[in-house]
């Protein structure tokens, strides 16, 4: 099994390096095909590992080599494939295989084709390190690796100012959170003496609650950055500047769920500090609602889906915070499938519309893009949580968990959010595929994507539809390492009322979205309608003025402070003193240069002068040493 582990882990790296060889060369198909093939190899190896774990329940744990060993610190390059990491491996390799194949078509005309695949495969490698590592240090390497690759891919079209800005924003925000994460890891090491998950979690059982709380908080700050939770959420929507396959893979299915993975992986820690768990759940519920509300009005299909991702991450954190770790992981998996599908469908639409993203300029695309329409609609149904698609099983159970745990505020928020989710998902579906063909006004000639791209998407479609039926198998597998919390309502009637009620609520939201946006009276908004002038609309379209206030109240003062530090402290004190020292030495040299007249006689005179000075110094110091005691007496008499 070790061999399969190494194959799964290292084939993306090989693929990345292979594509990198062509980095500076003109676009060539092979730079896309080989990494894709290697990723499918990785997928097969992961599937074999999954089958192994499903049949024997045996955890594969290897130690490739020692990384650091000094004193009491021992960190190996160790990898573990247990029920949790194998889930993540399956999600990562599956979605990335699909995205790789899809991207061969999507990036067809791009000059940076080879570079793209190099980054994309490098991302998968880092993500696999992140999920497979058996210690916090390895996790952190993967964590930084995915951050770097995400930076490279958001800023992929680096000639665009907005793309580089978004890439830097994402990177910097993640750095802020990573500081928290790093402090958390240090706390773990100081208090448990090890970074191996096994040893660390075992040692945590005997620690003070206070220390554990700090650990939990700092590790969660790291998770907040990567998973874009409030208040570090603004980067995710801006990250949509990257190519769409990147958004599907990194900013929907895998990287952003790393935070959830971290909380799930540290479940033994969070089980000891339920207060932090409640905080995580409350923040998750808030973000779910908050992000969904911003998605309601946005006029950029990718951003709508990004907010939806944010909102679903909120759901996952609610589950993880309430101790339903397996539910969080299950929703993570289901979400990866339907959200990646949704993004790739949006990619098809963008491709057809020459990168136009405003759904109000589309309309009626269903006639020319049947397959994409079906896929996106099914993905949205799954996202909305309609029976029997994946979202129903994974999302409803989170809502139920909140109810059973008596967190009724969270429950209400999540329920309302489910309605909002359904509404905004079908708002864009209706605007893109139904209604009048508004795109004709703007002179677009949409066409369906390549056949093989659609075929590549189909595994995601199948999984988005059937993932729910895997729930019990999954539950049995993953509860070998996670707490087996099951949520049964006390009475069957309540259960049915709640389930059917939710379903009806969601369906009504969908129908309302269709009624409002699929009719022929929709016009491209020009800022004159009553709705657009309302306060709420302005608040939502400006993302609650949060990016604005960050700019105004954090970035601006920081920049001004930096200018002051630069001009006043750096230039006038630090630079001035360094330059001063250099100036003194330079000036002395310049002045004393005259001594070197080259005249032997003059130089001899200087030599004699030096000799006299040295001699007299020797005499003075010799006398001082000889009469040290008397000098001391005189000095003490002077009161020195």
């Amino acid at each position, binding site marked *: 099994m070790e061999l399969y582990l190494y194959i799964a882990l290292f084939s993306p790296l090989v693929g990345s390096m292979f594509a990198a060889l062509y980095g500076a060369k003109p676009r060539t198909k092979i730079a896309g095909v080989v990494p894709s093939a290697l990723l499918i190899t990785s997928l097969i190896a992961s599937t074999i590992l999954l089958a192994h774990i499903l049949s024997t329940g045996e955890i594969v744990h290897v130690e490739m080599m020692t990384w650091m060993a000094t004193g009491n610190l021992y960190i190996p390059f160790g990898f573990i494939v247990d029920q949790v990491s194998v889930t993540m491996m399956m999600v990562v390799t599956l979605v990335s295989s699909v995205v790789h194949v899809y991207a061969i078509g999507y990036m067809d005309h791009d000059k940076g084709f080879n570079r793209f695949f190099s980054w994309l495969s490098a991302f998968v490698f880092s993500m696999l390190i992140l999920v497979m590592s058996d210690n916090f240090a390895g996790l952190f390497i993967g964590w930084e690796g995915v951050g770097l690759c995400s930076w490279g891919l958001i800023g992929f079209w680096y000639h665009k100012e907005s793309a580089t800005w978004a890439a830097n924003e994402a990177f910097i925000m993640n750095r802020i959170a990573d500081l928290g994460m790093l402090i958390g890891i240090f706390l773990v090491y100081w208090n448990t003496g090890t970074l191996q998950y096994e040893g660390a979690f075992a040692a945590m059982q005997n620690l003070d609650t206070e220390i554990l709380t700090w650990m939990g908080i700092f590790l969660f700050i790291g998770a907040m950055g990567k998973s874009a939770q409030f208040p570090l959420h603004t980067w995710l929507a801006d990250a949509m500047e990257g190519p769409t396959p990147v958004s599907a893979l990194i900013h929907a299915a895998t990287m952003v769920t790393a935070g959830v993975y971290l909380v799930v992986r540290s479940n033994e820690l969070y089980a000891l500090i339920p207060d932090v768990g409640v905080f995580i759940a409350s923040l998750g519920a808030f973000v779910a609602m908050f992000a969904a509300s911003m998605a309601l009005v946005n006029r950029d299909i990718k951003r709508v889906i990004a907010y939806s991702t944010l909102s679903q991450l909120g759901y996952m954190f609610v589950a993880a915070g309430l101790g339903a770790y397996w539910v969080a992981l299950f929703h993570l998996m289901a979400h990866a499938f339907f959200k990646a599908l949704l993004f790739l469908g949006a990619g098809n639409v963008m491709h057809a519309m020459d990168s136009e993203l405003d759904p109000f300029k589309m309309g009626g695309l269903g006639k020319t893009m049947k397959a994409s329409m079906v896929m996106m609609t099914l993905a949205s149904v799954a996202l909305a949580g309609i029976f029997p698609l994946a979202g129903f099983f994974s999302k409803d159970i989170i809502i139920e968990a909140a109810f059973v745990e008596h967190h009724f505020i969270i429950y209400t928020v999540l329920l309302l959010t489910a309605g909002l989710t359904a509404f905004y998902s079908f708002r864009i579906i209706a605007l893109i595929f139904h209604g009048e063909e508004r795109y004709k006004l703007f002179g677009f000639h949409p066409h369906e994507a390549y056949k093989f791209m659609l075929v590549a998407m189909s595994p995601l479609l199948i999984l988005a539809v059937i993932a729910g039926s895997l729930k019990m198998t999954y539950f049995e597998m993953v509860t070998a390492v996670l707490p087996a919390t099951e949520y049964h309502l006390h009475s069957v009637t309540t259960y049915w009322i709640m389930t059917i009620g939710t379903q009806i609520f969601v369906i009504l939201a969908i129908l309302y979205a269709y009624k409002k946006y699929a009719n022929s009276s929709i016009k491209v908004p020009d800022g004159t309608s009553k709705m657009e002038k309302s306060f709420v609309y302005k608040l939502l379209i400006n993302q609650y003025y949060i990016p604005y206030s960050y700019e105004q109240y954090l970035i601006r003062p920081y920049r001004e402070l930096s200018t002051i530090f630069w001009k006043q402290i750096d230039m006038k004190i630090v630079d001035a003193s360094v330059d001063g020292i250099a100036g003194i030495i330079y000036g002395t040299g310049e002045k004393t240069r005259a001594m070197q007249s080259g*005249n032997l006689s003059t130089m001899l005179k200087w030599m004699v002068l030096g000799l006299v000075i040295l001699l007299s110094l020797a005499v003075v110091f010799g006398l001082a040493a000889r009469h040290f005691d008397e000098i001391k007496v005189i000095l003490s008499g002077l009161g020195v």
Partner: protein
Amino acid sequence: MEIGLNHYLVLSTILFSIGLVGVMRRKNLLLLFFATEILLNSVNIAFAAISHYYGDLTGQMFAFFVIAIAASEVAVGLGLLIVWHKRHNNIDLDSMSTMKG
């Protein structure tokens, strides 16, 4: 009056001062060598006198070393001097300023 250590040292100092003045004032390379010889030999006198005073032969041995070094120095120096004289037809110190910084 008996001649003691101090007399030798005073002689040595006087010779050394004469040498120093010669080193500083002379513009003729040949005379500069003379001045250097005076310097070295004033030190030799001091060495020999102090060695005798303490009854320790080390100082006198050192004086021999100095004589040997002085001889070789003069040999090399005179060689260079002759070359210089052949090229420039003078041995004036002021004309040697190629090392100007």
